[in-house]
């Protein structure tokens, strides 16, 4: 845990606000460390881009004879790769000018942004599932399994009941949350009753959920009629999350994600249960002495975390996939772990982290397609960012950041 002192209240004499701001900017607060981690990851990513391109690498073999060639080629490659990453995540200026001149449509101009939000929506939920549990002192590795169960429950509810519009969607979402909650409740209960470590139980339940889904999709009544491969029936239109359609895949899920983030923030910081879970998270023994039922908190907390991950799975099925397949949940549960780490286990931080990861994925697709750089590079970038965040001392050492508290107190820290 890094000290969070971005806004130190200590009065400082004879110092302008700007000075304080600048000094705090270069101190090791969490925002600076996060930003610098991203910068470092991008730099290492650039090196990897060059190393992985044999044509550019070949130019380095005669570097001393004509360095311009190698540098030129590297710069072209790196800049076009990162330009495509940004264009694919936020928008292509070309598409905007096409729209203005009437050559293109507004849908095409906003498509990259829509992709970013589409990828981010489920990650917000799974990220919250991990970070909320973590605040209660539980390491929820089971977001993947919970999300898979959410997919299953939401998908099955989506094509079974045939309820009228709106109601059908609500029922499917609730089913998804309940499915995930069940998969979170089990390890919570085991932890509370028997002390079984939640890391082990949730990992094992991930496998169970994955195999259950693979089995379920080829059963009669679930499998899509007329298909012999592993794909389920399609979710009824009334149960799908409303979307613009066509190129714009973004759906209501991202709105739900923001609302849920607000809800989790309230639960954590304002509600009685939130206080209990934070108390249990920081010291279960003290919490028990203070009269908080640790067992009850663990069980309820895991069920809620499971429900959040289940909602993530539900948005995936009801928002983008529309049918169950063995890998419908993709990697959203495990990405949720990274998102929670990057968001420092705070609800709003998790939301921002999920948006960043969504942007990287959306941009990565374009980068792969246009520049021909493997999508794995995006995974490497994500991992590097998280590694640097998990090792703040490294970032501090590289950039020689001041310790945050010392800077805030106005004590001139020893140089370096």
């Amino acid at each position: 845990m890094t000290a969070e002192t971005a806004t130190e209240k200590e009065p400082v004499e004879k110092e302008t606000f700007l000075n304080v701001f600048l000094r705090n900017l270069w101190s090791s607060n969490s925002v600076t460390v996060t930003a610098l981690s991203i910068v470092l990851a991008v730099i290492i990513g650039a090196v990897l881009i060059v190393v992985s391109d044999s044509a550019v690498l070949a130019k380095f073999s005669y570097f001393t004879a004509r360095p311009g060639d190698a540098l030129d080629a590297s710069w072209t490659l790196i800049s076009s790769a990162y330009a495509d990453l940004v264009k694919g995540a936020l928008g292509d200026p070309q598409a905007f000018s096409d729209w203005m001149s009437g050559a293109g449509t507004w849908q095409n101009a906003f498509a990259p942004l829509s992709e970013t939000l589409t990828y981010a929506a489920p990650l917000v939920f799974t990220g919250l599932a991990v970070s909320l549990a973590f605040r209660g002192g539980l390491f929820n590795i089971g977001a993947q399994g919970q999300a898979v169960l959410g997919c299953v429950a939401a998908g099955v509810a989506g094509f079974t009941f045939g309820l009228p519009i709106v109601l059908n969607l609500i029922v499917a979402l609730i089913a998804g949350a309940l499915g995930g909650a069940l998969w979170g409740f089990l390890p919570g209960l085991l932890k509370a009753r028997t002390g079984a470590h939640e890391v082990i139980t949730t990992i094992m339940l991930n496998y169970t959920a994955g195999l259950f889904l693979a089995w379920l999709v080829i059963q009669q009544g679930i499998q899509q009629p007329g298909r012999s491969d592993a794909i389920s029936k399609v979710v009824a239109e009334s149960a799908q999350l409303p979307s613009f359609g066509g190129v714009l895949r973004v759906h209501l899920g991202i709105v739900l994600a923001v609302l849920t983030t607000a809800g989790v923030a309230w639960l954590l910081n304002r509600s009685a249960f939130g206080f209990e879970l934070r108390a249990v998270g920081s010291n279960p023994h003290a919490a028990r002495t203070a009269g908080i039922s640790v067992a009850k908190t663990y069980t309820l907390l895991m069920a809620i975390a499971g429900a959040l991950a289940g909602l993530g799975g539900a948005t995936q099925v009801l928002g983008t996939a529309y049918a169950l397949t063995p890998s419908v949940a993709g990697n959203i549960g495990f990405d949720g772990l990274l998102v929670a780490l990057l968001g420092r286990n705070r609800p709003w931080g998790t939301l921002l982290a999920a948006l960043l990861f969504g942007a990287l994925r959306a941009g990565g697709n374009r980068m792969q397609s246009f520049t021909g750089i493997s999508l794995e590079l995006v995974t490497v970038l994500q991992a590097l960012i998280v590694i640097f965040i998990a090792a703040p001392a490294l970032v501090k050492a590289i950039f020689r950041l001041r310790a945050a508290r010392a800077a805030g107190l106005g004590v001139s820290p020893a140089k370096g």
Partner: protein
Amino acid sequence: MRPVRGKRIVAILAAGGLTLAAAACGDAPADTPAAGGSSAAAAAYKACMVTDTGGIDDKSFNASAWAGIQAAKAGASNIDAKYVSSSSEADYEPGLRNFVTQKCDYILAVGGLMGDSTKKVATESAGSQFAIVDSGSSGANVYPMQFATQQAAFLAGYLAAGYSKSGKVGTYGGLKIPPVTIFMDGFADGVAYYNQKKGKTVQVLGWDKAKQNGTFADSFIDQNKGKTITQTLVSQGADVVLPVAGGTGLGTAQVAKDSSGKVSVIWVDQDGCKSAAQYCDVFLSTVVKNVEEAVKESVAKGAKGEKLAATPGYIGTLENDGVSLAPFNQFDSKVDAGLKTELDQLKKDIISGTVKAESASAPK
């Protein structure tokens, strides 16, 4: 501390610099080729491929399809090839759309699971030409490529039953999915046909066609699992084994190699003596599913400006060599000449329809 650390860093940099300099002092090429390198002909035909979640190196249909595009590229200079890998199913649509944006002339989707995404994007972009492997057509601008693999597997079953000395043959799959079980269906039928024809009782271990149930490794890469399963099949008496499990099947080949000639293997997808040459001496034959050729031909056709008609599309059969039984390679002298003639006749009979090779997983 500081100066020491500083010197250390300088030393490391210097050492690294020297190494780099030594590696980098080759001569510059005489003249710089045009930037971009790969952009060859002016009117290039862009063939673009989206893999399914198996990725480009799956040693199965993604790899074969890409090899097909590469082969077409080697045959015609105006073809420009590109691919993207999908890491999850949510990537199918953006992958296809990105290629529409780049104005690809031929957009290939690999695998039946991409059917719905392909249909959606193809309907939106009626001006682009799509193609899909292992799925039926979903629109006038989608060229489907499917394979009646059970026909070739039928021959393999007949061959195995005829070659077996123990009167038992075995098979197992990687996963219980149609592209796998279609091999096992054909294999079981081929053995049954042999029994009926010759009045024998060769048994198939590992697959029951009527119940559609059998042995599966649940993996396409785990060689040890393949070994264990094969050892079980061998201990039950099987002496010819058909593993339909990608890399897992290499475990079977290892068991066969260790048996010093008692057990032989029928390989799948691509001729084993090419795709797993180190085990060539245990491969009786291979049930070939020629994704590569089908893709290559369709790309070559498209590049020549011919229309790729959505109906009937392409169905690989014994007749058009889309599926086939590979040569016997090192077993050529060991397979009875009579059996070879019977196989040739059986192939003709399947093509003419006198013998029916059917499977629930066959393309319709």
